[in-house]
């Protein structure tokens, strides 16, 4: 009985610790920019290759979202697609389970 929700509790605790860790580190690192690690990696590549990062050109021409707003919209769309799939299937399974119980 006491074990029933242990995974839920663990998940909430993990997320809370994660948030607390973020609040703590962001308060002691005043100059942290929180850019993507992709970008930080790209800067190191530029440094290792000895050329400025903005002079590295795409091998295959690429469309870049014109602003952060548009980028966040497309990321939200990606998450929404995933969320719809997950919600649809869990709903389908719950329905199946109810259906078999009543017959």
């Amino acid at each position, binding site marked *: 009985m006491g*074990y*029933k929700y242990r*995974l*839920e509790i*663990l*998940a909430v605790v*993990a*997320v809370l610790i*994660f948030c607390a*860790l*973020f609040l703590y*580190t*962001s308060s002691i*690192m005043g*100059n*942290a*920019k*929180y*850019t*993507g*690690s*992709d*970008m*930080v*990696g*790209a800067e*190191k*590549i530029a440094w*290792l*290759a000895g050329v400025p990062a903005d002079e*590295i*050109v*795409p*091998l*295959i021409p*690429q*469309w*870049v*979202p014109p602003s952060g707003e548009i*980028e966040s919209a*497309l*990321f*939200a769309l*990606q*998450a929404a*697609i*995933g*969320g*719809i*799939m*997950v919600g*649809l*299937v*869990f709903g*389908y*399974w*719950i329905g*199946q*389970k109810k259906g078999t119980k009543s017959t």
Partner: protein
Amino acid sequence: MHIMEGFLPWQWCLVWWIFAIPCLVYGVYLLKKVLDADREALPLLGVTGGFIFILSSLKLPSVTGSCSHPTGTGLSAICFGPWITSVVCAIVLLFQALFLAHGGLSVLGANIVSMGIVGPLAGYAVYRALRETRVNMFLTVFLACALADMFTYFTTSLELALAYPAQVGGVGSSFILFMGIFAVTQVPLAIVEGVVLALVFKYIVQLKPDILFRMNVFPEAKINAARNDT
């Protein structure tokens, strides 16, 4: 974990594409086989694939003062194996390359190898090693998911280190440099991802245990024990 477009010399792009393509072809073949064998596998693929879509879109801040995202591939690797997982990852990575300028078409092969192949393979190996043991089922899922995440970033670091060996110390010191960026940032994210996906797996066990029996994801005794426990 995205290597950005243009940031990998074309020779290396080619090498990683050569690794990636046979895996994807095999993945598509397996996917068709699994779905033909059992139509109820498709909803399970929807859940595990859905979490790859969701988790890989969340860019979370980490202790290093930069942001990174989880991969979500572990659950799919456990249920469907690494090759089918690589097909789902390829779709996500293609979306991000085309519309988000995260990664790109030339580096897609390298990104598929890290997120879609090596990461899921590592998670799958952990899962296979622990599947028949007495280790708790949810702990196994946690470890597989967290390690699939970590190995994705180890691989990205290695791909970059091979392409850009440091003048002093060569590939080894480049690898350590990139690990400092990617892997350290990833540790807290991998732990949270592992816990969340273990919780998701618990709900799959509760709602649809028969698909897990049929696909032989875990021994029946283990799944039944977990169902009675909750």
